[in-house]
């Protein structure tokens, strides 16, 4: 490319401005002073200046065998110029250039949400060099195993482990949660998070694109450019479309000998709004999601999710917090304090979630020494405390240990189960002392969120869980679910989803992304409650950052709005082309300039329409 080419393309904005001014001058001189000479000359100059960048682009396109819009416009303008229609040639080039400028401005707005995200990527790091000093280097120069220093206010450059120092880190870029998290030796830290106070030295575990933040960025970047079936079709179509328009114009010219008509067809045939409409909705929709902690993996996902009529939930960790707490207790002894201390001491030996719940509940902090601890798998725990034999566990363990359950205890057990408790019995020297019921709490606000999902048109809300049916039924009735099934293994969940699909339902599965990956993969839409975990990000179609359930209605509403927006844009684009083609053949008001104006306006309309999605908020 010669220097002149490059200069002209660089000065496109200036050229647009000059061309506009010349056109204004032309019309002022004609109307104000009736000076036909100036009128013609200024328009001629405007045409020549204006067409130069377009023609250069057209030439580049033809060199790589692409018939681009620039090619069509260049031919049309040149022809208009040759038949001395300077008014048309000047106005068309100006409109094309000006439209181009406005498109650039508005497009960068629609992309702004995702740009904000990628700009949070760390760029430099303080790396320990061979002489022991820390030196600032580009983040590309950091390798796994390097020792890095992070100071207050700086971005953590890699995923790593804290070696020394402590501080508070804002992890909003990964989890969406802006409350700072305390970090000290051996804590994991993530690239892209910000050290709000303190100083830490970290060992790099993962760098660059392998970090969690790197994965998120790559995922979003790929998502915004991923293409659905429909888009690939439009792409193929538009590839052949411009050459066809060129041929059509040639044929019209050959038969009608009407150059004006032929070049008008060339301008009208530009496929602008159709090609740009869907990608614009896509990028704005995904950008809105990224801002609100919802990662949508591409336009296919948007399309499928917007059509979901059945949502299947995992229970623990999804609808419930996944952190069981003691809800009910019955005490059958008058030495409650001492017995509870025994129980806490024994339970403290185990890291089972139920044991943890019991210890937390008793609030005991000083424990008895425990001897002869024996953990019974699937049953409980047996140990000696203060010379007495303590057995803690479920009903099966009590029966196995020949501990008698009297009528009162049996009645209480039935009542506890009905309330959806998991049971823990505690006996001292073969006598039942305490019955404890433990329940997982339903997440705050889940009920309202489910109502919103129904309002968005989801017909079936179903819960599947590995827990006992009593617990499952209780949660289901509290939340108003359509169906709830307990005792489900991961493969049962998978079969259940396949069944629903074979009945014609479009299913989304919401799970924690770890043990439910088969179901996440099987469902049309797999939604992971991911606190920024790799598995969640990899296996699912939609990721709710920071495990925030309340983002689910927003995600569904957003995909519906985005799918709608795409459809609107396609209708606008196709409608405009049809109206233009109809008018060129059946009306007399259509000419090249009006055609170009309508064409550019329609492009701006679809971009502005897409931009509305950036402001989308669920409103129920």
């Amino acid at each position, binding site marked *: *490319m010669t220097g002149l*080419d*490059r200069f002209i*393309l660089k000065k496109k904005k200036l050229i647009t401005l000059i061309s506009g001014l010349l056109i204004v001058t032309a019309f002022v001189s004609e109307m104000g002073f009736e000076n036909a000479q100036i009128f013609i000359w200024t328009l001629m100059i405007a045409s020549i200046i204006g067409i130069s960048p377009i023609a*250069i*682009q057209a030439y*580049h*396109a033809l060199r*790589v*065998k*692409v018939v*681009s*819009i*620039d090619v069509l416009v260049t031919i049309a303008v040149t022809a208009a110029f040759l038949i001395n229609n300077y008014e048309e040639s000047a106005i068309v080039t100006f409109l094309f250039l000006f439209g*181009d400028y406005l*498109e*650039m401005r508005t*497009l*960068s707005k629609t*992309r702004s949400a*995702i740009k904000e995200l990628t700009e949070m990527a760390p760029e430099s790091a303080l790396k320990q060099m061979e002489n022991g000093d820390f030196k600032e280097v580009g983040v*590309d120069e950091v390798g796994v195993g390097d020792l890095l220093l992070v100071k207050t206010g700086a971005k953590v450059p890699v995923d790593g482990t804290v070696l020394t120092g402590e501080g508070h880190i804002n992890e909003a870029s990964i989890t969406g949660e802006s409350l700072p998290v305390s970090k000290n030796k051996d804590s994991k830290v993530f690239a892209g998070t910000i050290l709000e106070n303190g100083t830490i030295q970290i060992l790099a575990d993962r760098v660059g694109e392998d970090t969690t933040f790197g994965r998120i960025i790559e995922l979003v*970047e*790929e998502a*915004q*450019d991923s293409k659905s079936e429909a888009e690939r079709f439009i792409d193929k179509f*538009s*590839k052949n479309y411009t050459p066809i328009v060129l041929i059509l114009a040639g044929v019209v010219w050959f038969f009608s000998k009407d150059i004006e008509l032929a070049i008008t067809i060339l301008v009208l045939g530009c496929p*602008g709004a159709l*090609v*740009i409409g869907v*990608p614009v909705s*896509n*990028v704005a929709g995904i950008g809105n999601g990224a801002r609100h902690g919802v990662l949508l993996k591409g336009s296919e996902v948007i399309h499928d999710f917007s059509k979901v009529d059945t949502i299947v939930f995992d229970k623990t960790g999804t609808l419930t917090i996944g952190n069981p707490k003691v809800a009910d207790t019955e005490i059958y002894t008058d030495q409650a304090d001492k017995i509870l201390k025994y129980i806490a001491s024994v339970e403290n030996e185990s890291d089972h979630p139920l044991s943890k719940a019991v210890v937390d509940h008793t609030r005991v902090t000083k424990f008895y020494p425990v001897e002869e601890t024996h953990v019974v798998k699937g049953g409980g725990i047996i140990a000696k405390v203060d010379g007495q034999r303590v057995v803690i566990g479920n009903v099966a363990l009590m029966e196995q240990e020949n501990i008698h359950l009297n009528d009162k205890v049996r009645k209480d057990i039935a009542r506890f189960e009905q309330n959806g408790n998991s049971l823990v019995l505690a006996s001292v020297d073969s006598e039942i002392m305490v019955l404890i019921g433990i329940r997982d709490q339903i997440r705050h606000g889940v009920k309202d969120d489910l109502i919103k999902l129904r309002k968005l048109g989801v017909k079936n809300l179903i819960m599947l869980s590995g827990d006992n049916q009593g617990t499952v039924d209780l949660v289901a009735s509290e939340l108003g679910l359509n169906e709830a099934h307990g005792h489900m293994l991961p493969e049962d969940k998978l079969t259940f989803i396949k069944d629903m699909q074979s009945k014609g339902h479009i299913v989304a599965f919401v799970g924690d992304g770890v043990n439910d990956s088969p179901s996440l993969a099987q469902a049309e839409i797999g939604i992971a409650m991911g606190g920024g975990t790799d598995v969640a990000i990899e296996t699912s179609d939609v990721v709710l950052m920071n495990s925030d359930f309340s983002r689910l209605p927003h995600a569904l509403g957003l995909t519906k709005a985005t799918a709608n927006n795409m459809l609107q844009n396609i209708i606008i684009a196709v409608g405009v082309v049809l109206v233009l083609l109809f008018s060129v053949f059946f009306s007399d008001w259509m000419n090249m300039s009006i055609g170009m104006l309508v064409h550019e306006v329609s492009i701006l309309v679809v971009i502005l329409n897409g931009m509305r999605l950036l402001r989308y908020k669920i409103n129920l």
Partner: protein
Amino acid sequence: MQKATIQLGPLTCPSCVKKIEGAVKSFDGVDKESVNVMFNSSKVKFDMDSEKLQVIDVERAISSLGYEVIKSQVK
């Protein structure tokens, strides 16, 4: 084969995508199937054989089409 990523200045028209795609595919040593020009993120990704060409050659071809090349990465 190595993976190359070239970050471009913002792309504004879908026909730019076609042009850049055509230019990159015209190189011997570029795996044609792998060429992916991303409109919204304004990036080109492709697999290349670094024995046959340098990424700088591709960068030159793209900038001679009139598009700004911001940075590139090969690995």
